[in-house]
């Protein structure tokens, strides 16, 4: 059995490992800067410098972003790393990576709090280690995703809720922080709102003695919901739900209620299916790392062992809590139409990690030769990390670089050389190019607001959000190319991918290649052409 000092040392090592896995080359892996990431990043920069977002909205409740709205907490916290590390990808992702480390720390603390048996340190350490190395936990810590921050806040709150069973005075803090989590990510809006009443109901005998504290806690939670109430009827509040849910789909021959029940069940079952949890579910690289599931496949065995052991402890606080949390954590994701979207079920993945950890502990305890057991466990951990490295740092890096618009980060470096020219960048297929360039150039948020605000076709909080925006960042114009006009402009560089400017179009319009932007594996993805100053534009010739 581990002594306390050794246990503390191991915990520190696990935290250091989690820091390494989350922060190592954070700015370059995954390569690129996804439009959701850049939207958060620029809004944080704008809030940090002006108190307004890029549309000029003063401290918004939700941030308008490319056809949708982003929850505000990440954006309000990120100005600090941006101030510290500058307008970089690393700075934008910093908070997510930090949340990943917080998740590891609070996993340890929660399991320690819930386990009373003699193996509690071992279980806490294994749980922290599994969360530290699990693909889902690393992947979502290395991208700007509000979900990771949402989970970390949720876990802090969960820890306080559990603590409140011994120290009731922390209950208001727990409720308040859980309220904050609802502002951090959409899934928490539903999960937290369901969790609090169920938690209080399950332990009502205990909390009945502290009625005043309970009412105060509920009041604080309610207070955090006021911003939601403020925008409840605007359409912005439910905009994301309307985008991703199946509620507006045609039910076909089925009665609507039955259709909704079937859809919910189908999605619920897909989220608890081992296929989706322990193997590569497909090629949608926006969600998973190539050839990896959200968990390593071998963890399926300890998962089963862990589940069996949890079910055997039906009366324990640990079991009650996880049994309560598991279905709650799947409700919001099951209301959406995607088949399997791990980002929406981070709480559930965390619970699965705990079950896996219990399974590992049971297996290690059952092995007669302890040394051999730990050696095999160590080998599996190392194997897992190698598998993750290959998948994430090699395959994901190269295979998603175009999807993640890595070429536009590189383009930014080239653009610095052409400040004396007018530049037009095609945004036909990537509507975030303008914001991306603005972020790296630290383009003044006030000026940005003056460009974007007039382009709003509806109220800031609205269910109608347009993606067609034109950006004018110093000498750079970002919009879809207009072939009737753009080649005729003097002293101008046109930039786009091969679909935007084909070889034939370049030849027809007498464009001269200035430079190209290559991917890390040397494939040309963007080309820049200068216009021919002597070109005599004729509409009938140039209208292609």
């Amino acid at each position: 059995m581990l002594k306390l000092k050794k246990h503390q040392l191991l915990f520190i090592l696990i935290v250091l490992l989690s820091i390494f896995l989350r922060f190592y080359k954070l700015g370059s892996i995954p390569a690129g800067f996804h439009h959701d990431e850049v939207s958060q990043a620029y809004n944080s920069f704008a809030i940090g410098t002006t108190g307004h977002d890029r549309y000029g909205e003063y401290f918004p409740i939700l941030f308008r972003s490319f056809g949708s709205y982003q929850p505000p907490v990440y954006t309000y916290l990120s100005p600090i790393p941006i101030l510290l590390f500058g307008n970089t990808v690393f700075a934008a992702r910093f908070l997510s990576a930090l949340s990943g480390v917080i998740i590891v720390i609070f996993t340890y603390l929660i399991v320690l709090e819930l386990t009373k048996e003699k193996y509690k340190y071992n279980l806490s350490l294994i749980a922290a280690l599994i969360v530290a190395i699990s693909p889902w936990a690393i992947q979502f810590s290395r991208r700007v995703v509000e979900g990771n921050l949402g989970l970390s806040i949720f876990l802090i709150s969960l820890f306080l809720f559990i603590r409140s069973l011994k120290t009731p005075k922390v209950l208001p803090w727990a409720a308040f922080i859980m309220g904050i989590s609802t502002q951090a990510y959409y899934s928490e809006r539903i999960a937290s709102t369901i969790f609090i009443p169920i938690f209080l109901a399950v332990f009502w005998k205990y909390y009945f003695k502290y009625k005043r504290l309970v009412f105060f806690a509920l009041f604080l939670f309610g207070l955090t919901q006021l911003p939601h109430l403020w925008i409840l009827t605007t359409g912005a509040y439910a905009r994301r739900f309307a985008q991703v849910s199946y509620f507006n789909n045609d039910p076909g021959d089925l009665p609507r209620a039955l259709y909704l029940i079937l859809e919910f069940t189908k999605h619920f079952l897909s989220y608890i299916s081992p296929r989706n949890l322990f193997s590569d579910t497909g090629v949608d690289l926006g969600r998973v790392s190539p050839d990896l599931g959200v968990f390593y496949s071998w963890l399926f065995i300890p998962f089963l062992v862990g589940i069996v052991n949890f079910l055997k402890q039906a009366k324990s606080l640990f079991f009650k809590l996880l049994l309560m949390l598991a279905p709650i954590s799947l409700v919001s994701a099951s209301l959406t139409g995607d088949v399997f979207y791990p980002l929406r079920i981070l709480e559930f993945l965390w619970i699965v990690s705990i079950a896996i950890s219990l399974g590992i502990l049971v297996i290690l305890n059952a092995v007669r030769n302890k040394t051999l057991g730990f050696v095999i466990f160590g080998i599996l951990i190392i194997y897992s990390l190698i598998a993750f490295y290959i998948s994430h740092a090699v395959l994901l890096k190269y295979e998603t670089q175009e999807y993640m618009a890595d070429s536009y980060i590189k383009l930014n470096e080239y653009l610095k050389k052409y400040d004396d020219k007018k530049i037009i960048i095609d945004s036909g297929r990537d509507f975030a190019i303008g914001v991306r360039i603005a972020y790296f150039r630290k383009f003044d948020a006030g000026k940005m607001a003056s460009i974007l605000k007039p382009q709003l076709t509806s109220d800031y909080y609205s269910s109608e959000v347009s993606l067609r925006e034109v950006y004018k960042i110093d000498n750079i114009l970002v919009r879809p190319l207009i072939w009737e006009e753009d080649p005729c402009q003097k002293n101008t560089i046109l930039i786009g991918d091969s679909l935007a400017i084909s070889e034939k179009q370049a030849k027809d319009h007498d464009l001269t290649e200035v430079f190209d932007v290559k991917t890390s594996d040397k494939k040309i993805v963007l080309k820049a052409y200068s216009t021919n100053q002597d070109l005599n534009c004729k509409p009938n010739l140039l209208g292609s």
Partner: protein
Amino acid sequence: MKRPKVVIVMPAFNAERTIRDTYFEIPKYLRKNIILVDDGSSDKTVKVAKSLGIKVFEHTNNLGYGANQKTCYKEALKMNPDIVVMLHPDYQYDASLIEDLIYPIAKDKYDFMFGSRIRSKKGALLGGMPRTKYYVNRVVCFLENILLGVNFTEHFSGFRAYSRKLLEKVPFQSFSNDFVFDQEMTISALSHGFEVGEISIPTRYHQKASSIQFLKGTKFILEGFLTLAMLFLHNLGIIKDKRFPPAKNFMINKYNFLTLSAITLINLILYGILDNPIFEIILFIETIILYLSYIKDNFLAKRLLFILLLASILISLSNGFDKNLFKLTPLESDTLVSRHEHFALELGRLYKNRIGINYANSIRPVLVKFNRNLFSSLNFELFFNVRNIVSLFFIPFFLLGIYNLSRKINKFLVFYLLVIFITEGFLTPGGRYGYLLYVPFINLVIYLGYAKA
């Protein structure tokens, strides 16, 4: 030790040419209590037997091998024996080994001994056993061993010894009058809990010896399996068979049986595999047998289950084997070409060597696909084929069933699921044969949930 009273019985039919040799091979001190029952022979069997001093009983008509033995044992029991030895008078079995055969019974170690001719393949074939008979013998022996939970080397021997206790308890009078009598004796004795052992004897086929013909032989083998099936149904409580002791703790309640059948049928309809009736029947039976194996811990059911599982695996593999598992599709080849470059750029020398390149381009793709296949069927959404309200009805029972199952996980069930899980690795992902292998398990879990609800 007091020498046991041994009665030797000879079921005879046209054995005039071999009785004498058989008789003189019997140890002298055992020759005083010999009974021969003549089953309507047309030769001088009776005359020769009587000339040797053998006690002879005659059937006026040819009643069959089983009927002959019934008379043998009935008459033998009248002589108040300790041990009864059955010896074919066709000189096929080495009677000088009777002492070895009866020794374990005399020592009260066993109640039933037989002489096995299959000590080795070479010995059996050199002894004159036809090659076809040898192989049929081996295959049937293998299957019956699995179903009966024994490890005999032969099930067809006609050189046997029984304790009196066994002959008084086993209801041999209700057995068949035909060749399957011997099989019934073995199965019934085992079902009554008697200990059965074997000794090795030489194989001795010769021209004078009697030999079962092809059609009769086939009938005999099928009747043997039918007897096993009857034992199984008897144990289920579905039929009552006098040959076997009353079923005890592994009877299936008729209500449970109907419920389980209903769940299975509904699930099979939900899965929509009505185009493969053989597979459906196998899955249906597999469900019932899985229930008996798991709930009733019936060893016969466990063995039968693995035979059925083997059959369903073979059907699945023949219909749904993943042909792309060991070869690359054009798309996969393209991906590997670009990955080759990426690995080289990122991993450098770690990749640029024979092992690294072979692993990444030959081994890793197969492992990745195999891994994907392993999990492809573990998709609950497809388990329940959520398309209508009936499938919804099963889900809560399934979840409750999982909860109940967790309280009684046994090695057998883990092994059963592991076999299916590994088979999945070779099946085309997304193909229905993968899910179907899990159907008996799903049905069992739903039933467990229902039963406890």
